[in-house]
Structure formats: structure tokens, C-alpha cells
């Protein structure tokens, strides 16, 4: 009997292997031929939106794309770690990130290839790397979410730093600042305010009783559950929750230089990409105004970085902080260290 089971097991393995491991793509080409394979895209954009965009690309160009997404827990950082690990044997051709800080880090580490896409010409310089290593579009904003019935709008802070005022932090939920967009937000605060002021702010949050959650959407869930009155998160989390019928609103607190932090999607060519030709075509598509418009009109509600597009769509883009993404990336390590030592102790 045991032999039969083992035989069955092997048979299942062979069958499955036959149907997947040695599969052909839809055009009937055998895998294993690099030039016949589709471009490989690593993306940390929410699967729902990434799928729509890639399906549109595949339909309109007839070209296939192999997509590997990220897990919700460690948004972006998982794929970035993977790209680092694979640097001797690159699997990814294109990296499409839902934020910018990890892309800038990859660029600094020499893991990205230069490509100045014609599609990115009308993107403002603030959202592009000067060496052509990455380009940004379709931004989200760092926002403070609240339930209108639970807190009057006049009771909301005008700046991020005001969250440290007595009585405010105990009503606040914030995602783990070591990961995702909260990490970049913390680094931006550090870059703008300097070490001492930033650490003082964190201490006030801790003393005030702010709670740290496992991700931005968890912070919003705590807000919707009535456990907190304010949640630091990204604009798309609030827009999505609103689209699902939840009563939640957002404001754009000032970072201290006149605006909040904008987090653009970023697209980059991975250094050593095996399918560079297809990868560049995919990058051209992703950076096009058409895709930026798709994301602006999606449930994610991204803010166009192209002024002409925001005017066309009638989207009011929040005032943006002017701290550069390179400065933010430089502040990443000291900001993370401070968060570890103060907020997560």
C-alpha cells in the first residue's frame, strides 16, 4: 500500500511538472530560451491595479509579461531584497515600485540600469533620477485619516509635528516605521527637521501612547474599529476604504515646508536585465500618461505628477513637501535607528 501511495505521489509530481515546470507560453514557445521569454516585472503595486495595467499592456501590444508581486506584510522591501540577492543572476527586468525610497536605494547600490524613456519627458524633474536610473509618476500622499463623526475637523492638526502635542498621540495609530511608506515618511521628517527635533517628536508619540500597527491599512482598520481617532497612512488606503462604504476622511498635514510628502510610483530597468528590449517597451508603457490616468481614475486615486493630466482630470493635487527623494534616502538609516530606539522600544 505504501508503495502505491509513493507511486501516486511521484505520478502527481510528474503530471504537475509536465503541466507547469515544462510549460509553454501562450505563443507556444518553449521556455528556457531567453529571447523568447516575456519580460519579468517585479512590482509592489497592489495586485488589483497592477493586474489591470498589465492586462491592458498585453492586450494592446500582444506582448506577454511575467509578473511577480510582493507580500502585503513587507511591501516593496521583499522585492528589493530579492533584487539584491539576485544581483549575480538577475531575474527581474523591470522594477515597478509603489514608492520611491527603495528604488533610490537600489540606484545608489548600482543595481539599476540607465534608461531615459521618451514617455517620461513630460514628467517633472523632481520625480526623475538625473542619471536616468528611475522615473516616478502617479503619486500617493501621506495623509492623516479620521472618522468625521468621531473628531471635528477643527480639532485636527495642521502639521505632522502637532501630532506630538499633549493628548493627540494617544488617539493615533501609525504603521511600523521600519517598513513601507511609513519608513520613507519618517526619513523625510528626519531630513527636514534634523536628528534632535525628529527624536523629540518620536519621544512625544511614545509618551503620548501612539500605537504601532502592522501596516498602513491595519492603522486604518484600527481607526474604523473606533480604537483610535487618527491614523497615519497613504491616501489610497483612505480612498479604498471610502469606496467600500466606510465613513473615513483625510487631511494633508504640513511637513514643515508647506506640504505633505508625495510618494510616486517608480519604474526602473534592472541592471543586467535579460530581456532588455521588451523591458524598455514595458517601461515606456508604464511611464505613459495613459497609465498615470488609469491609476488616477482607479480606486487607488493616485495624484498625477503631470500638471496637464491633473488639469485634464480636474484632480486637486495636495501641496507637496520639497524635500528631495535623495535627501530622504540619505536620512533613511538614522531615521530607522531613531525609530528602533524610541518608537519601538
Amino acid at each position: 500500500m505504501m508503495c502505491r501511495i509513493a507511486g501516486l505521489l511521484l505520478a502527481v509530481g510528474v503530471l504537475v511538472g509536465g503541466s507547469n515546470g515544462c510549460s509553454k507560453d501562450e505563443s507556444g514557445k518553449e521556455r528556457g530560451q531567453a529571447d523568447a521569454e516575456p519580460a519579468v516585472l517585479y512590482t509592489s503595486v497592489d495586485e488589483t491595479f497592477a493586474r489591470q495595467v498589465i492586462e491592458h499592456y498585453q492586450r494592446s501590444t500582444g506582448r506577454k509579461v511575467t509578473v511577480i508581486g510582493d507580500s502585503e506584510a513587507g511591501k516593496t522591501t521583499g522585492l528589493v531584497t530579492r533584487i539584491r540577492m539576485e544581483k549575480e543572476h538577475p531575474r527581474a527586468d523591470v522594477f515597478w515600485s509603489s514608492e520611491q525610497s527603495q528604488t533610490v536605494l537600489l540606484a545608489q547600490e548600482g543595481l539599476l540600469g540607465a534608461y531615459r524613456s521618451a514617455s517620461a519627458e513630460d514628467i517633472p524633474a523632481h520625480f526623475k533620477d538625473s542619471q536616468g536610473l528611475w522615473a516616478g509618476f502617479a503619486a500617493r500622499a501621506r495623509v492623516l485619516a479620521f472618522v468625521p463623526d468621531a473628531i471635528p475637523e477643527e480639532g485636527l492638526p495642521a502639521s505632522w509635528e502637532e501630532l506630538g502635542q499633549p493628548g493627540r498621540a494617544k488617539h493615533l495609530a501609525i504603521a511600523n516605521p521600519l517598513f513601507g511608506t511609513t519608513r520613507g515618511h519618517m526619513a523625510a521628517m528626519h531630513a527636514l527637521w534634523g536628528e534632535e527635533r525628529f527624536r523629540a517628536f518620536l519621544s512625544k508619540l511614545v509618551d503620548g501612547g501612539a500605537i504601532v500597527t502592522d501596516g498602513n491599512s491595519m492603522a486604518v482598520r484600527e481607526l474604523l474599529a473606533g480604537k483610535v481617532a487618527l491614523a497615519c497612512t497613504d491616501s489610497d488606503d483612505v480612498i479604498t476604504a471610502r469606496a467600500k462604504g466606510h465613513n473615513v476622511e483625510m487631511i494633508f498635514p504640513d511637513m514643515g515646508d508647506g506640504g505633505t510628502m508625495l510618494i510616486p510610483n517608480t519604474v526602473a530597468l534592472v541592471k543586467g536585465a535579460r530581456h532588455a528590449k521588451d523591458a524598455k517597451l514595458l517601461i515606456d508603457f508604464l511611464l505613459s500618461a495613459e497609465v498615470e490616468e488609469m491609476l488616477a481614475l482607479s480606486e487607488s486615486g493616485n495624484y498625477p505628477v503631470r500638471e496637464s493630466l491633473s488639469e485634464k482630470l480636474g484632480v486637486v493635487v495636495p501641496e507637496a513637501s520639497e524635500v528631495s527623494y535623495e535627501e530622504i534616502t540619505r536620512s533613511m538609516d538614522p531615521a530607522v535607528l531613531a525609530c528602533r530606539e524610541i518608537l519601538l522600544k
Partner: protein
Amino acid sequence: MSRDSSEVRGRAIQVLLIAAGVAVFVGAIAFPVGVLLCRVLAGPEPSGAALDFPLALLAKTVALAAAAVAVSLLIAVPAAHVVSRLGEGPVDLVAGVFLMTPLTLPAMVYALGWERVLPFPDWLRCVMVWASWSWPVPAVFVGRVWSRRGRKLYEEALLECDPFHAVVRAVIPVLWRPLVACGLFLFAFFLGDYAVPHSCKMVVYATELLLRAEASGSPADTLIASLPVVFVITLSLGGALVVWRGREVYQDAPCDGQGCSLGWRVVVPVVLAGVCVVVPLFVLGQRVQLGAAMEETLRIYGGDVVDSVWLAALGGLTSVFLGSCVVTSVRMRSVCLVCAMLSAVVPGAIVGGAIAGAYLSIAVIYDHWPIMLLGYVARFGWIGILVAQLARDSVASELMSAARADGASELAVGWHIGLGSNVGLLLAGAMVIASLCLSEVAAVSLLRIPQVNPVSLIIIEKFHRFEDGIMISLSLLIVLVAIPGAVMAGMVVRRFR
């Protein structure tokens, strides 16, 4: 064909199967562990942050797991009473199925259902979900001991003293070992679990490790950060092993179905399964327009569900196959058991990182489904070994001795008698492991491939994006595919008691 050549062929097949088991063991456990150690030694120095152990988080995780174990053992007591009395009738079969159902369904689904029913704090919901999923484990083992020895001792003690003293004198000395061993085993399992706490919005040590594994370029960082929890898990599993090994082996036949009325055999399983399974699933189903949501889910994610299910099933079968090969080979048993237990103490994030690092340059594995299969076996192969060992131990030693006296080799005794007569138990174990694979998050997060989008990761993403329709439909779909496992486990538990 002569008897000699038939024996030679049989032996050759057995040797081949053992070799396949060794290959699985090396591929899933030994090789990745070796590569991980080499990467740690050859890699960059661990950063200072690696030594910044979040001990408060560890204390919180330990407290949560301990509370869950306590509640699980409490729920298991009435269930164990019923398990010990299961007979051969159709009512007993249904009772067995009801009793085993909670364990065979992914616990993450309960968490998503309870979130909508229980106005409890998150930590309490996490405790309840763990407990309501895991209680069948102690129920089966305690029920078995009670059936074979405990009840008899208790009744004998009743002739001399009152029920309270009978329990103290006769029951506790017999039942404490399975209770403590199961408790420690579950405690170790909960400490490494990511999916249930995450679904209950709890940050635990496994959450921290997964984030660190995803964010750090140095495997040493994550490995060092895991040391405190690895230490506690090692202590727990070691303790469970010591307690379990010290037990008496009861060769008594199980008592028959007397002493537990038909009503009890119906009421207890129905109430327990009703509260633990039906309520959260019913609530989930009530939340959305299920028909439309299911249609959308099948249209978009039907392929991912199918892929996830067959891979999880293969993970379960391969884990039990590994266990079967290990326990039938006297030479391999101790080494493999120690190595597999070591892999059991390692959190999923490190398992995933080790497998990815080991197969990075082998495209045929790294880029395709075998990488996920290896991840599942590395993560749950130890449970496969425990199940196979259990199957082997459940055969009367006289039967094995008789086979040896008839000239059967040790390999043949182990393979044909120890395991061959317990195929049902092995398959039920495979299905429980498949269910664990279906809801595994930490390891597979690091082992993504383009062809398969694991359903556990889709559910979590939908949970985060407030897409309840798809999240609930996917949850109910994986419950549906787990039902055969519950039936199989229900059939087995009657024989195993």
C-alpha cells in the same frame, strides 16, 4: 516469478523509496540549512540592529501562545471524552468528522470570520482562534489514553474513594503526559505562526522576523534576530519530546462505545464544531452577496486557487512521504528527526530565506513550483515525520515482533506493518499539513513565482484592501477543498483512539 525474485524486487522498491525520501530531506532541509550557514559565515557582518532583540514582543508572543494553549486544552477535555468513546456506527463517524473539522480548515479563515462577530480585543480573538483551531490535537491524544487506560483506572479508583480523589489518584498520573506534550507542541507551533496573529491585527515575533527577513540583505541579521524565539521553541519541543517519550505504551484495546450516551456523542461534537467552525464561516458568508462575489473570485483567481490547492496537497503528501521514509529507516531516523525538529524551531521567514538562497542559481527550481514545494516541506516536514512516527507507534509491538520472527527485515516491518496498516492516518496527516500549507504566509512570501499566486497571500491582500467579497469567497473556497480532509481525519480518529 519466484518468491526470491519477488522479495528482491520488493526490497529494491523499498530502497528506491528510501532514497527518494533522502533526496527530499536533503533538498528541503539539509541543503538549504547548509547554504544558509555558509551565507551567514561568508556574508557581511551582522548589523548592530540584529542584536536589538525585541524582547517585549517575545514576551507578548509567549503570553499569547500560552493563553491559547490553556484554552485549547480546556476545550479538548469534553472532546477527548467523546473521542475515547467513538464506536463504529454512522453516528460515531459523523461525530469523528465534526471533531476533526476545525483542525483541517485553515485557521486564518476563522480569524477573518470572528473579526466580525467578537467585539473582543485583538489579542483575545487571536487566542480564541488558535484555541478553536487546535483543540482536536490534545483531544485525540488524551482521548486515546483515556480510552485505553485512564477510564479503567478511574473506575477501579472509584471503588476505593470519591470521584475527586479518583481523578487525582488515577486520572492525572495517566493523562498529564499527553496533555503537557500536546500543550508544549502547540505552544511551539503558535510561537512560529504568522498567519493567525496577522489576521487578528496582532504584531508578534514572527511578524517582526518576516519584516526583517524581507528588509535585510544579510541572512545573519534575521538569523540572529530569531535566536530568542528559537530558544523558546527548542525548549518547548524538547520538553514535549521528553514528556512524550516517558509515557507508558498501553497495549490495552480501546474501550467500546459504552459509557458515553448517544446524546453526548452528538451534542459535544456538534456544539464544538458549530461554535468553532460554523459560526465564523456563517458570519463570513453573511457579509457579502456571496453568489456575485464567488463568480468574480473564480473568474479572476480560479486558476490561483487550483494551483494553490494542488501545491498544498503535494506539500502535505511529500511531507508525510518524507516522514514515512525517515521512520522506516533505522539509520536515518535519529539524524533526520533531529534535523527536521531543528527546522521546526526555525520561523517561516528564515525557512523561506534559506530555500530561496539555496536555489537561487538553479533556475528550474527557483523559477518554478518546486521552490514552493520545498518551502512547504521544509516548513512542515517535521509534522510529517511526527505523523509517520505516530502511525508506526500505533501498531502493537507483538505484531512487529511476530513479523520479525517470521524473517521480515526491519525495513519491511516498518514499511508494510508500521505504515502500511495506517494509510488512513498518514493521508489524514497529509491533509492537515496541506491545510497548513494553504494558509502559510511567512515562508512563501519569500518564495514567489510567476505561475502561482498563493491563495493565502491573496486573502491577506484583499483583507488589507477591504475587498471583503473576494476575501470571503477565497476563504470559503479553501474551506470547501479541505472538507475531504475532515472526513478522512474523522474516519481515522475512530481507529486511532
